[in-house]
């Protein structure tokens, strides 16, 4: 697992285990704090959102990606550049509709040490933080999107599939009212 630390111009890699265990501890603590799965999921999504809005600048600053001209390019960049950079895996992208894409992860690094979801937590979205992060990052470049888990390996599916649905593009030009 590699993540850039705040050192001058060096990409320090931290231990993959440290990252995965930290994430696991975070989710476990949230499960202790909240009774309902929906609350935990919402909390993870919010945290992911806050991470995403900041991470996107780091991503754009360090990987010289050009402005994407369509949704398909955007999804490709997310899968091939962003995931590779931050999680070390490259999901494959499939397009179901003109504005709906799926990222299919054969191997989800965040659930390395998780056997299965605990009893009574069957609707917990363990990697909900990822969805929030993607959503936050896209929002900062004026692409409103809904990001959810379509398939989750922890819930018995074979692969982990993240679905991105691009909503109407947010116009960032201010329309001045006639005074």
């Amino acid at each position: 697992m590699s993540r850039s630390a705040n050192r001058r111009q060096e990409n320090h890699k931290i231990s993959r285990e440290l990252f995965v265990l930290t994430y696991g501890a975070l989710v476990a603590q949230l499960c202790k704090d909240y009774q309902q799965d929906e609350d935990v999921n919402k909390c993870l999504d919010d945290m992911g959102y806050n991470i995403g809005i900041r991470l996107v600048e780091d991503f754009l600053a360090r990987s010289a990606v050009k402005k994407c001209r369509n949704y398909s390019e955007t999804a490709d960049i997310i899968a091939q550049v962003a995931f590779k950079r931050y999680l070390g895996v490259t999901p494959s992208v499939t397009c179901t509709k003109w504005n709906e894409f799926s990222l299919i992860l054969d191997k989800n690094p965040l659930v390395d040490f998780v056997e299965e979801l605990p009893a009574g937590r069957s609707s917990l979205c363990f990697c909900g933080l990822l969805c929030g992060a993607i959503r936050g990052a896209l929002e900062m470049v004026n692409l409103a999107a809904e990001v959810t888990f379509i398939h989750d390996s922890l819930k018995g599916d074979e692969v982990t599939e993240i679905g991105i649905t691009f909503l109407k593009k947010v116009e960032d030009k201010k329309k001045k009212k006639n005074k």
Partner: protein
Amino acid sequence: MAIFSVYVVNKAGGLIYQLDHYAPRAESEKTFGFPLELVLRPHDERVLVAFGQRDGVRVGHAVLAINGLEVNGRFTGDGRDVLEYLSSPANFPVSIRFGRPRLSSNEKLMLASMFHSLFAIGSQLSPEQGSSGIEVLETDTFKLHCFQTLTGIKFVVLADPRQAGIDALLRKIYEIYSDFALKNPFYSLEMPIRYPLLLGQEQQQGPASPPPVTGAALEAAASSPLNV
């Protein structure tokens, strides 16, 4: 110094960071007898030299201090109108310090938001669709370089017209911003970036001191553009 200033403007056009890196300003202090040979004129909130350039005092310089007491806009340190003070012979001989006027922080805020609007106009004026905004603004004394990120933040650098490598500097400043401002959990997006205490300390220690904070890092980047 080849880099004069750095401005960081947020999406709404507000200035969130500003750094001045001017060379030592040309200032001159002289003693004058009545009547004053220079023609002074009020302009905005300052008293400027309109005519009568001599020695180190140039047209456009502002009155910075009178008899050692710093001038407050158009008024002397003790509250009297500068022009009035200098028109009565009883106050002479007087020692006046002239120099290039410094922009106040309000003026910088205003100029940054004005630039933000001009940037948008620049992209709308373009005959081609999807043009970028203003990238370079050139005058005879400086060149302004602007880089807008895909998220709408603008990094503006004012540099010597002959200075090369500003594009790399702008990218570097973007990286520093993403590292020190955004990764700070207590920093709210779009808000002014302030690290006053550490900035003072780090400026003395220089760029080699860890951990570098936004101001010092930007200062270091600005002072060594060729190393970027």
